[in-house]
């Protein structure tokens, strides 16, 4: 997809406002998944604003966000980075055959204690 169209799509899906970003980096400062991410929250915002979206779609980073909303609540500009990350992930997993998690993967991931909640959440986040 054309990058500008893709950018608009992401903004539409997320309802977030990358244009309001002032590049303070507080989202990345507060992110608990920072170390696991190749692209960090502030980069998501900046890259989407610049239409540089392809690398994000192909990055594992989109599965590392915990949707803990720390970046959303602490952003001084009301940008809502987590919603942008989710939008990128959705654009990726909504593609045919692009589910990040399948039912077959589950058994080996389970242990005795793991709550159902974790499974349904992961499915919500990783598959379509």
């Amino acid at each position, binding site marked *: 997809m054309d990058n500008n169209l893709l950018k608009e799509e992401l903004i539409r899906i997320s309802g977030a406002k990358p244009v309001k970003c002032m590049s303070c*980096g507080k989202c990345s*400062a*507060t992110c608990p998944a920072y170390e696991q991410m190749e692209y960090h929250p502030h980069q998501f915002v900046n890259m989407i604003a610049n239409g540089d979206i392809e690398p994000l779609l192909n990055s594992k980073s989109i599965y590392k966000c915990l949707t803990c909303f720390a970046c959303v609540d602490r952003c*001084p500009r009301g940008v809502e980075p987590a919603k942008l990350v989710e939008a990128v992930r959705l654009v990726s997993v909504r593609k045919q055959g692009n589910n990040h998690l399948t039912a077959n993967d589950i058994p080996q991931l389970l242990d005795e204690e793991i709550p159902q909640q974790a499974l349904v959440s992961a499915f919500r986040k990783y598959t379509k």
Partner: protein
Amino acid sequence: MQRIGVFVCWCGSNIAGTVDVKAVAEALKNEPGVVYSANYQYMCSQAGQNMIIEAVKEHKLTGIVVCSCSPRMHEATFRKTAEAAGLNPYMVEIANIREQCSWVHKDMATGTEKAIILGKAAVAKVNLNAPLTPGESPVTKRALVIGGGIAGIQTALDIAEAGFPVDIVEKNPTIGGKMAQLDKTFPTLDCAACILTPKMVDVAQHEKIRIFSYSEVEDVTGFVGNFDVKIKKRARFVKEDVCTGCGACVEKCPMKKIPNEFNLGMNNRTAIYIPFAQAVPKVATIDANACNMIKNGKCGICSKVCTAGAIDYTQKDEIISEKYGAIVVATGFNPISMDKFDEFAYNQSKDVITSLEFERLTNAAGPTAGKLLRPSDLEHPHTIVFVQCVGSRCASCAEKGKEYCSKICCMYTAKHAMLTRDKYPDTEVYVFYIDVRTPGKNFDEFYRRAVEEYGVKYIKGMVGKVSPEGKKLKVQASDLLNNKQIKIDADLVVLAAAIEPDKSARPLATKLTASMDTNDFFTEAHPKLRPVESPTAGVFLSGACQGPKDIPETVSQASAAAAKVIGLLVKDKLKGNPCVARSNELMCNGCSSCERVCPYGAITYEDKEFRMPDRTTKVRRIAKVNPAVCQGCGACTVACPSGAMDLQGFANNQIMAEVDAICK
């Protein structure tokens, strides 16, 4: 019938870019009363004004319509032009075809069409204009300065030096304001007290200046040149003229655990107190909420130890009424509450402090006598993290903080960082910044020195979370230039809290009928050309009440405000606004409706004898407007059932003519 000249301004391309000015001039030529029509690049320029003057003479014009920018901008200019041409200045009407037309509409056809209609409305109004002569009112040659910080002090001194009496109303027990709390000042690092306290003494000793400390403005009525102000002098339970400021009472007061406001609660004071050694006036004040004698009638020690006999537990609040010609607002600022930013743990750890608290910690007169010790355990901090822009530059949709840049934080943080490194070279100092903003004389050089000569570590990025753990503050932040998330174990975290106008400003603005912006900063009469005047005549602005400012800027503005006040007070008489209400006595019923809605008490009644057509006489009660008191709001004109009351300059038939022209 009027002979009207229409002058259409291009305002360069500001108007001409979206409005076909020639077509407007052409179209208005055919309006009733119009005998001359022209257009020109800059109507407000000397050449443009001359053009008007020439046209008035040549075409014997009786009225002028200028199609240009907002009347709030140049109505006064063109009235003067008319006067120069020998016309009554109130025979001018402005059609606002810039702010309300060319700047808000995009295409030429629409803009032109609307400009013509606005022009027609103005022509219709001028057709009904009548020459008006302003009344005169005397000027009370005394100024009131509200707020006794550096802004108020400077303004008061300048006005007093010009020979006019000035009263300062300060809500705290002493003048001095925020500057008195500061340690050093950027970029020259003078000690704040060293440069402020002599000025405070000057104020105290100046024969033209009176200080009402521990006082508030209760009520303001009147108008420019003639304000009536009620000042509430709160009871301090100490006779000001008797107290010598010896401090014996303070020493002996048994109530010693009251958080000390001057040190931002970082240490305690007594119930009877003098805020700081150089306080002006240097008199004690009893905190009624803390004093056992006042609350329960048990104690009275201060009274016993006071050799001067200054203590008076029965003192009551006192209302002082005074007349002023001008009022200067200098209510200043405060750091915002950090409650909505507790990811920085301000409410969770004593060692997370604001920059103003840091000032007190490094001030020789502060709670630690100038030694940099952390509040929790009074140990010397080795790693200090400064966080910039806390609560500043927040988008409104984030629903916390302020949208504006607080302007002073970059510089004072550089100062704090530099001084810390200077005094304690063993400390690591980090400054997290989004941008470093240093537009000021010697400002950027100052900031660079902090980095280059003092080794302050500036990191571009923001702190995301501060977690107190044991004796450390775990700071998690981003380093954007290195694309890293970094974690620092800090001993002290200093937050550059956004600043906001003092809370007293909003109710004061209401009393003064002065306008404010959405952030509660006072609005200027014009953002560029009249920056120290409020739109309310006779009310002037000094210091941070108008917007964030550092000390040099505050002092310049304070002096500028003083100059404006002096310019007003040297006048013996002021020309009033002739656009005031007038009652047609033949039509007046004497019903009192107008009197009841008049906010100024400008309407009175008298019994007047009328000769009737049948040669009898009839005595009727009729309304009279005092033109010196009337401010021209027009509330009475609508309250009047018969239409006897009308407003000059905005008369019923004029407004209806405008309506008709627009709806044609």
